[in-house]
């Protein structure tokens, strides 16, 4: 039988431990939103919303959905040191993949719009998913634009990247672009004017 004293001890222990455990399990830090031209809406995995206007340091967690409405732009930095910019009218979910052999890989799922990213650490990879393909890169500057649910444009500005659709993988070198269309292989990399492609992100950078 549980004595009142034991019960109180158990209750006190529960109050101390449970909220911390639950919080840790559900809210894994993933990065920080640092600048928003316009309003960046961050939707937590439980549906709670928070916003960043202008410069700041809003914590981003695994599972968060970042939404940039209208013509605004926003800059975040992941805890792995990857800079990510969202263009206007964009929606991106912050995800990851865990592998026993490699640890955690940061994954960004673009649901709408366009993002730019700069990955500076050889040990860290970034993957940007869209409904028709995924761009994987490390030590690179990349841009991914979801034209529609059926079309994606992947561009590598510096470094190299690997753009995969369900039907093929295309190796992209600096200054090249590949298109992904639903039900088709990615198009062979073609030279592009990267300054034009990523020009939208430049005003955000420190």
């Amino acid at each position, binding site marked *: 039988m549980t004595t009142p004293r034991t019960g109180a001890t158990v209750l006190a222990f529960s109050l101390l431990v449970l909220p911390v455990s639950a919080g840790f399990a559900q809210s894994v830090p993933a990065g920080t939103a640092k600048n928003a031209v316009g309003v960046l809406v961050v939707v937590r995995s439980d549906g709670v919303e928070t916003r960043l206007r202008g410069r700041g340091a809003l914590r981003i967690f695994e599972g968060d959905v970042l939404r940039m409405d209208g013509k605004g732009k926003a800059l975040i930095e992941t805890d792995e040191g990857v800079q990510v910019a969202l263009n206007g009218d964009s929606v991106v979910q912050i995800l990851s*993949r865990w*592998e026993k052999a490699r640890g955690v890989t940061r994954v960004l799922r673009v649901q709408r719009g366009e993002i730019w990213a700069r990955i500076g650490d050889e040990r860290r990879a970034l993957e940007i998913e869209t*409904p028709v393909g995924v761009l994987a890169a*490390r030590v690179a500057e990349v841009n991914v634009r979801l034209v529609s649910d059926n079309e994606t444009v992947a561009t590598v500005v510096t470094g*190299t990247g690997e753009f995969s659709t*369900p039907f093929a993988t295309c190796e992209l070198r600096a200054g090249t672009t590949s298109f992904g269309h639903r039900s088709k292989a990615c198009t062979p990399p073609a030279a592009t004017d990267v300054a034009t492609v990523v020009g939208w992100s430049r005003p955000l950078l420190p």
Partner: protein
Amino acid sequence: MKRPRLGAFLAAILAASTSLAGCAQQTALPSHPAVAQTRVYVANESSNSVTVIDAESLKILATIDAKNHATHDLALSRDGRFLLATNLAPGRLSVIDTTAMETVASVFTGSRAHVVAFTNDERQAWIANIAEDNVSILDISTLRIVGTLPTGKGPTGLAFSRDGRYAYVSNQGDKTVAVVDTVTHAVVKRIPVGTNPHFLTLGPDGRVWGCNTGSNDIYVIDPGTQQVVASFQVGPSPQQIAFGFKGLLGPLAYVTVAGFNKVLVLDADPKRLRLIDEIEVGDAPNGIAANPQGTRLFVVHERSNDLRVIDTGTNRVIAAVPVGMKPIRVVVSK
């Protein structure tokens, strides 16, 4: 760019198994072929684990932590070397190394990841995400999600045709089965079925079988015509289907009917779909799978938390094995 080691490891396993199969066809049969251990894997939704059982001795070999929550569906590679498990709560897929008996990767696929199936070439796995009304496509060699297909509202079942040309996705919200062309990734047809269509199973003759959990019947789709060619009322809350033989009789379809606590035995010929037998089992039978010979059925019960073994020769339960809490799905190595 280097590919992830785990993905490369899985790809190597697949490549090795393919090449070994090729060798086996070119060399003489061994005089004493090795008997591989047949294993049974059970997804325990409320224990977040997978129970591994030796199909012959029925000994529990391991209980694998899925490193996720609400483990629901399973797909086993043809060579049995790795197992994929969906997890409803986090929307993630657990990748399990069946040699090491441990989870070696966790991939986010989509909200409420429900069912998973390998494509016939095992280069990809498709995962149906109920809350996103789509199917995610996982590249097995890199473990990357390389695409997403909108298939219908509330996808809950997934199976590929025998030739791999079509994927069938049951959609609870639409009361349909979407037929997806695996070459164009287009939904080429939506086949009306009943209420709450759930798991789909490829039958022994290449037809696709499914249960309507809400309208208490099963249906059979012919990939040749992409139409329902037969249906049959089985009772409240039918869940899953497996196929086996009773001596010379068969193939037979075995349907778990959760509301009756029974497995119903039907003729598996859609032209002669009729009740042959009823087998009393445990509380709320759900997952069912047959051994490769079709002589044993393994049934899991989500309320009595056990696996029961049916001998198809006698249609009797011959053993019971306790598993984790709320077991949903069972698969058997081939």
